C-alpha cells in the first residue's frame, strides 16, 4: 500500500502554467486535497462490502451506504466551501498504472501513459458537493421508501456503486478514467432501472437506457481517442496546455470532429434531443434512483464533460465552431420534451421530461459559452429536481400509484410533501427569489450576451437570439406543466382509493432539507451581489474564461418572471378551480399537437421502425439460422459422438469391470470360507497349530 502511494506523483499547476485565462491563484490545498482520492474510493469499496457483508450488518446495508455518502457529503462540502469562500484549491494527484501502446505526434513516438488519479478543483469540488449532499439526502430517504423490498441490500449496493461511479467520473484527471467512471455509472444505472426486473417493461427500460447510452458512448470513445492520440496524452491538463498554446497543433486539425464526437457522448448521458428517449423510460426504477439520476449523478455527466473540456470548446482555433450544434440541440431539448410533459399522466414522467428540458438549458448555456451559467443551473437543478422526485416518491408511497389521475387533493393529507413540492415547483418555474430564478436568468442573460458577441460569424447572432426566445418559451412551458402537476396532484378532490397519509419523518426530513437548498442555492451567485459560485467553479486547471454577468439584466429577468407567472396563472385557470371537472379539463385536446405529444414526436417509433426492427429482423433471422444449423449441428454432433463413445464404455463396464469385481469378490469369499475352518473357537486346536507352526519353523531353521 505504501509503495503504491509512494509511486503517486503529485502535479501542481501554478497560475502561470495555465496561461492567461487563470484569474485565481491555485493553492495545493494540503492534506485535504491530497487525501481526496478517498472520495471516489470509499463509496466504490463500500458498494462491494455491502454486497458481501450487507445482509449481515444491522441495518441491512443501508447504514454502510449512508456512511459512505455522509463521508462524501462532508468532504465535498468542505472542499466546495473552500473553493467558494476560501483559497481556490487546484490539486491533481495520480498513481501511474503503466504505459500502454504508442502514439505518434509530429514524428515523435511516445508511450501512452495510463494513470488513476483525482482532481480537486472548483469544477470537481462542486460535483463532489452535489453528489455527496443530494446523494446523502436521497439515501436517507430511500431507507423508508425501499422498506420491505426483496432486494433491499442489493439495491443499496448498486445505489452506492452508482454514486461511486459518478465520483470516479468527476474526479478523473484524464479521459480514460472519465470513461471508466462513465461506464460504471451506465452499468449501475442499468442495474437500478431494472431493479424490478420481474416486470418485463422495467427490464426493457433498463436495456433501452443502456443501449441508447452505448450508442452515444461510441461518440465519446472516438472523441477521446482522437484527442488522446493527437495530443499524446489523455490528461486534461496536457490537453488544455495544447489548447492554450494556440492553433496549428495536430489537435487543431481534428478539433471540430473530436468536439462533435465528444458532444455525442454527452448527448447520450445528458439525454439531449433526440437521444433523450431513455430518460423517461428510466422512471421504471425506484423513485430514489430517479431522484439521484436526474439530479446529481447520471445526467449531469454530459454537462460535466463539456465543462471539463470547456476551453477546448471555447477556443477559436479549436472546437468553437461546433458550438452552434450544441446551441441547436440544447434549444430543441429544452423546448420539445417540455411540451410532452404537458400530456403525461405519470407524475414521474412529467418530472422526467422536465429534467430533459432543464438539461437542454444547461447545454444551451454551454453552447453559448457560458460555463458558469450552465454549471450553476446544474447546481440549483440538482436540489429542486431531487426535491421534486422525492416529493413525487412520497406521493406515490401514499397513493400506491404513479398516475396523477389517481391523486388530487393531497394538500390536506400530506402538508409537508405539499409545501416542499410547491417550493420545488416554484424554483423550477423560476419564481423570484428561489434558486431556479437565478440560474435560469443567468442562462438567459448569457444567451443575450452571446447574441451580441457570438463568435460564430455567419448567422451566429440570429441563432443565439432564437435560442433566447426558445429558452423564454421553454420557461413558459416549464411553469405551465409544473402548475398542472401541482394542481392535479395536490388540489381538487382525491381520485384514488383508500386514505392517503403523510410519509414518515425519514422521508419528510430530506424533503425539507432539499427544499432549503432549492430556495437558497441560487443566492450563491446573484449578479452584482454575490459571486461565490463563479469564484468556486472557475478555480480550475482547465481555465475556462467564460462570460459572467456583472449585473442583473432587468429586462430579461422581468420578462422571464412575467412569462412564468402568466403560465402559472393560465395553468391555475385551466386545472385548479373545479374539483369535479378538473380531470375533464385535463383531457382537453388540441387536434394536431396532442397526438404528436402523446406519441413523443414518434421518435421512439422512428427508432423502433427505422433502426431497431430492420437491424433486429435480419440479424434475428441470421442468428436463428446460425443457431439452428451451426450451433445445433455442433451440439448434435457432440451428442452423437458422446453416445457412440458411450457404447463401448458401457460394454467394457458391464463385461470387463463388473467381471473383474465379481471375480475378486468370489475369490475373497472362497478364501474366507477356507480360513473359517481354522477358526473353531477351540483353544486347544489353536495351541496345536501354534506348536505345529513352531515345530515347522524350528525344523526349517535346522534344515536350511
Amino acid at each position: 500500500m505504501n509503495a503504491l502511494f509512494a509511486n503517486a506523483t503529485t502535479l501542481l499547476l501554478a497560475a502561470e502554467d495555465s496561461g492567461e485565462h487563470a484569474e485565481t491563484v491555485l493553492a495545493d490545498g494540503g492534506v485535504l486535497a491530497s487525501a481526496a482520492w478517498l472520495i471516489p474510493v470509499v463509496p466504490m469499496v463500500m458498494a462491494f462490502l455491502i454486497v458481501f457483508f450487507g445482509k449481515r450488518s444491522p441495518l441491512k446495508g443501508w447504514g454502510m451506504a449512508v456512511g459512505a455518502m455522509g463521508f462524501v457529503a462532508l468532504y465535498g462540502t468542505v472542499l466546495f466551501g473552500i473553493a467558494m469562500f476560501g483559497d481556490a484549491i487546484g490539486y491533481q494527484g495520480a498513481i501511474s498504472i503503466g504505459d500502454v501502446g504508442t502514439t505518434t505526434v509530429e514524428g515523435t513516438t511516445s508511450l501512452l501513459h495510463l494513470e488513476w488519479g483525482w482532481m480537486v478543483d472548483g469544477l470537481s469540488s462542486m460535483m463532489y458537493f452535489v453528489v455527496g449532499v443530494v446523494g446523502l439526502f436521497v439515501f436517507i430517504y430511500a431507507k423508508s421508501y425501499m422498506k420491505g423490498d426483496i432486494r433491499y441490500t442489493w439495491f443499496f449496493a448498486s445505489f452506492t456503486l452508482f454514486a461511486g461511479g459518478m465520483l470516479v467520473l468527476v474526479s478523473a484527471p484524464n479521459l480514460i478514467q472519465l470513461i471508466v467512471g462513465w461506464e460504471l455509472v451506465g452499468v449501475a444505472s442499468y442495474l437500478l432501472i431494472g431493479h424490478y426486473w420481474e416486470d418485463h417493461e422495467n427490464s426493457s427500460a433498463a436495456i433501452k437506457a443502456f443501449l441508447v447510452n452505448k450508442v452515444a458512448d461510441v461518440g465519446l470513445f472516438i472523441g477521446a481517442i482522437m484527442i488522446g492520440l493527437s495530443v499524446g496524452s489523455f490528461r486534461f491538463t496536457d490537453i488544455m496546455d495544447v489548447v492554450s498554446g494556440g492553433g496549428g497543433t495536430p489537435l487543431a486539425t481534428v478539433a471540430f470532429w473530436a468536439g462533435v464526437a465528444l458532444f455525442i457522448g454527452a448527448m447520450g448521458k445528458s439525454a439531449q434531443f433526440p437521444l433523450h428517449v431513455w430518460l423517461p423510460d428510466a422512471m421504471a426504477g425506484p423513485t430514489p434512483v430517479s431522484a439521484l439520476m436526474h439530479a446529481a449523478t447520471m445526467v449531469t455527466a454530459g454537462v460535466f464533460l463539456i465543462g471539463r473540456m470547456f476551453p477546448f470548446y471555447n477556443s477559436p482555433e479549436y472546437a468553437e465552431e461546433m458550438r452552434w450544434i450544441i446551441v441547436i440541440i440544447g434549444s430543441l431539448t429544452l423546448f420539445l420534451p417540455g411540451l410532452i410533459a404537458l400530456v403525461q399522466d405519470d407524475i414521474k414522467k412529467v418530472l422526467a421530461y422536465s429534467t430533459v428540458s432543464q438539461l437542454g438549458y444547461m447545454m444551451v448555456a454551454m453552447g453559448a459559452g457560458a460555463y458558469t451559467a450552465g454549471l450553476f443551473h446544474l447546481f440549483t437543478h440538482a436540489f429542486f429536481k431531487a426535491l421534486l422526485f422525492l416529493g413525487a416518491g412520497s406521493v406515490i408511497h401514499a397513493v400506491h400509484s404513479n398516475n396523477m389521475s389517481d391523486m388530487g387533493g393531497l394538500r390536506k393529507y400530506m402538508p409537508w410533501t405539499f409545501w416542499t413540492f410547491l417550493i420545488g415547483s416554484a424554483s423550477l418555474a423560476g419564481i423570484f427569489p428561489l434558486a431556479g430564478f437565478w440560474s435560469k436568468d443567468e442562462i438567459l442573460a448569457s444567451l443575450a450576451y452571446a447574441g451580441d458577441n457570438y463568435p460564430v460569424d455567419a448567422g451566429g447572432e440570429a441563432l443565439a437570439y432564437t435560442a433566447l426566445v426558445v429558452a423564454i418559451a421553454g420557461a413558459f412551458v416549464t411553469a405551465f406543466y409544473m402548475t398542472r402537476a401541482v394542481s392535479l396532484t395536490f388540489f381538487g378532490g382525491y381520485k384514488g382509493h383508500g386514505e392517503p397519509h403523510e410519509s414518515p419523518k425519514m422521508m419528510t426530513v430530506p424533503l425539507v432539507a432539499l427544499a432549503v437548498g432549492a430556495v437558497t442555492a441560487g443566492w450563491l451567485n446573484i449578479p452584482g451581489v454575490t459571486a461565490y459560485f463563479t469564484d468556486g467553479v472557475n478555480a480550475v486547471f482547465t481555465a475556462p474564461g467564460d462570460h459572467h454577468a456583472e449585473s442583473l439584466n432587468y429586462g430579461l429577468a422581468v420578462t422571464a418572471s412575467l412569462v412564468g407567472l402568466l403560465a402559472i396563472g393560465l395553468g391555475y385557470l385551466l386545472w385548479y378551480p373545479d374539483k369535479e371537472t378538473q380531470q375533464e379539463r385535463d383531457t382537453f385536446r388540441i387536434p394536431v399537437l396532442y397526438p404528436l405529444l402523446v406519441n413523443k414526436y414518434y421518435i421512439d417509433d422512428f427508432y423502433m421502425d427505422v433502426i431497431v426492427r430492420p437491424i433486429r429482423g435480419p440479424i434475428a433471422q441470421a442468428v436463428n439460422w446460425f443457431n439452428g444449423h451451426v450451433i445445433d449441428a455442433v451440439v448434435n454432433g457432440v451428442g452423437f459422438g458422446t453416445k457412440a463413445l458411450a457404447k463401448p464404455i458401457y460394454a467394457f463396464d458391464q463385461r470387463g469391470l463388473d467381471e473383474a469385481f465379481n471375480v475378486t469378490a468370489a475369490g475373497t469369499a472362497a478364501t474366507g470360507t477356507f480360513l473359517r475352518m481354522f477358526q473353531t473357537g477351540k483353544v486347544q486346536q489353536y495351541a496345536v497349530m501354534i506348536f505345529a507352526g513352531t515345530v515347522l519353523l524350528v525344523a526349517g531353521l535346522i534344515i536350511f
Partner: protein
Amino acid sequence: MIIMQFLILGAALFSLGVYGVLTRRNAVLVLLSVELMLAAVNINFVAFDRFLGDQLAGGQIFALFIIAIAAAEVGIGLAIILLIYRNRHDANVDNLDLMKL
C-alpha cells in the same frame, strides 16, 4: 560337566506339558500343564547356567523371574477360570468357544 541328562529331563517335562495342554479338557489342568512347561524351561536355564559357568549367574536369576511370573500368571489364570466357572458352571475348554466365528 554333564548336561545331557538335564536336557533330556527338560525335554521330557516340556513334552509332558505340551501333551497336557493339548489333551486335557479341564481348564485348571491345562493351566497346570503350562506350569510343567515353565518348569522345563527353568531346568534348561539352570543347567546351561552351570554348564557355561556364567559369572553373573544370569540363568539362575532368570529362572527366579520365571517362577515369580508363573506365580502371578497362575493367580490371574485361576481367577479367570473361577469366574468362568461361576458364570457357566463349567470349566471345560472345549465348551469355551465364544470366539468362534
